[in-house]
């Protein structure tokens, strides 16, 4: 199978071929592609469509249904702010507003330098630390609005 357009790595290609005929494979495959690219590029979706013989529309239906999947490239640092019940009650919406203000971006936008994007996520599993914010794999608990600038600065370098 040729994958020139999307330039799939041999590992990714092997993974897709392994899962090709297994029922319910699409989500798994999309996870893997997003792991590789950070989002689901259109060309990758098209290549995947050909490889597993599925209409592109079907893939986009799934990709756009789940908030987790992105169709555009996110920032180098993805700031995930939890909007789960505990975090929300502890004021995490203010954290999102503050981060968006400081970075001057809205929704799924990415900062001009490509460094940051903000995701409003649901529970990330540490409600005791509410409100919680995560950048990459680093978790920040009991975050106050005035700490946001400091956290952003830490990842700017």
């Amino acid at each position, binding site marked *: 199978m040729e994958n020139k357009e999307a330039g799939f790595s041999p590992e990714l290609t092997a993974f897709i071929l392994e899962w090709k005929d297994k029922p319910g494979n699409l989500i798994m495959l999309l996870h893997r592609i997003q792991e590789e690219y950070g989002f689901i590029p259109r060309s990758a*979706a098209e290549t995947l469509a050909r490889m597993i013989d599925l209409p*592109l*529309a*079907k893939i986009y*239906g799934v990709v*756009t249904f789940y908030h987790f999947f992105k169709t555009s490239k996110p920032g180098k640092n993805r700031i995930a702010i939890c909007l789960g019940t505990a975090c929300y009650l502890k004021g995490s919406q203010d954290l999102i507003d503050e981060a968006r203000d400081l970075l001057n971006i809205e929704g799924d936008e990415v900062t001009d330098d490509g460094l940051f994007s903000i995701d409003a996520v649901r529970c990330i599993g540490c409600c005791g630390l509410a409100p919680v914010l995560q950048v990459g794999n680093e978790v920040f608990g009991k975050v106050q609005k005035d700490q946001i600038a400091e956290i952003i600065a830490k990842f700017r370098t």
Partner: protein
Amino acid sequence: MVKAKINSQEVEVAEGTTILEAAEKFHVKIPKLCHNDDLEPWAACGICVVKNGKSPKLLRACCTPLEEGMNIITTDAELVQTRKTVIELILSTHPDDCLACPRNQECELQRLAAEFGIRDQPFPKRLRNLPVDDSTGAIVLNPEKCIRCGRCVKVCQEMQDVWAIEFLGRGEKTRIAPAGDVKLGEGPCIRCGQCAAHCPVGAIYENDQTTEVWEALMKTGEGERTCVVQIAPAVRVALGEAFGLKPGTNVTKKIYAALRRLGFDMVFDTNFAADLTIMEEGTEFVRRFTAAGVGAPLPLITTCCPAWVDYLEKYWPDMIPNFSTAKSPQQMMGAMIKTYWAAQAKVDPAKIFSVAIMPCTAKKFENSRNETMYSSGHKDVDITLTTRELARMIKQAGIDLVNLPDENADSPMGPYTGAGVIFGATGGVMEAALRTAYTLVTGEELKEVAFTSVRSMTGIKEAQINMKGTIIRVAVAHQMGNIETVLRQVVEARAAGKETPWHFIEVMACRGGCIGGGGQPYGCTDEVRKLRIRGIYDEDDVSTYRCSHHNPYIKKIYTEFLEKPGSHKAHGLLHTHYVARPIYMK
């Protein structure tokens, strides 16, 4: 069998029958919206809720099977209120511009709102500001009006297997759109218009070009334009529905009369061009089938259906050599109007405005599909209107279609044979071709011209025709989703070095053929399709001539102008070519 009660009435139905089907069988009406007879129910809208005995749970009648001993209540004050709330919720995201909507008075949501006496809208409006997509030139998608019932998506994916549209996003933000943020015209859409024919509201509709036709008609009076019109086979058995007639009522002669009253100078019939298509395509088939065509690929595949042509170019480009090069009747008529007729009538073809009335939205695309659609040196067909648009023009003009006198089409391209009229139904092109091919192959005339084995609503039909010892194997497929099975067998036989399973294949993109086209009056079900098909074969049954090659005007056009079928001149005007195209242009 299952015994149960619906509104206290004892009913007995086959196992698996839904509550909705059972109710309809016993003349109990349950309001519905997302449900459509062509599609499996999927419970999107929630209008059809009913109760079972004293249970407080509301069941969706469309997808809940009736079970033994159920005591179904289809209406009470609470159910009416629930349904009304559902309608109010739908209206909260639906614009209120009914007066200027393409579906005004033909909208299923509007009708429900009227039936439920909606007077105020308690929920705040949350309209979605989404852009209109008119990129196909044939159908228009206005997502703002979409109620997300999902019919179009199911039609496009399940019936047609085209996958031009999908639900994107989720929840309140769900919208119907092509994948990957392309426009409809840049993706897999084949413009068959089945989405438009199935949409209950004004979210997908044909690109209305009646204004352009009115403008041209205005110029005829001033001698600047000569307006010539043709009507397709399937239009005549469906247009009447827009004027209260039963589906299948043949109003051919009233359409001619109406077209003259609209201001057209010449009224021709596409059925004549269908006869011409048979002469060209039948000759092409026999040439490929007999020794003369050694090396020419079989099966020959019909190309009258522009949605099918589009599909094949995108999905099966390897089969292009199997495509008949004969143009569709619409385009043959267009070419003949601006050459043969123009010369005969001494009219400057540059001043001719050629309009085609078609059951089809894809025909709007076909008329400028490639440079061969300009074979007369001008655009052979300037505008294609659907049956629905013609109905609109007749209503605008205040013409009482039903009470018009019967009139005839104009010579020389009006008179047609029974073979021409059956083009509008699935199997019709094949049958018409076989009637002429028989004579071409055997040199004899058929005694019995009806090939009933290619008729019926079965998705894929096969037949073997014995032409005095020569066996011709044919297949007929309609409804785009059915074609893959047929082509796959052809491809597999070829790959295995075996003989082709069929010599001749007819394909029509819409269920039932053109009579079920995307531009036909709304409310098409299999029952309606069967009546329309009946209307077509009834006319064939009583036709004086039933084979295209018997049409005296066809003989005349070859003698006077085209020389003989497949001649150099015929090739220049009546044939086209195809090219592989990507499914996604962007």
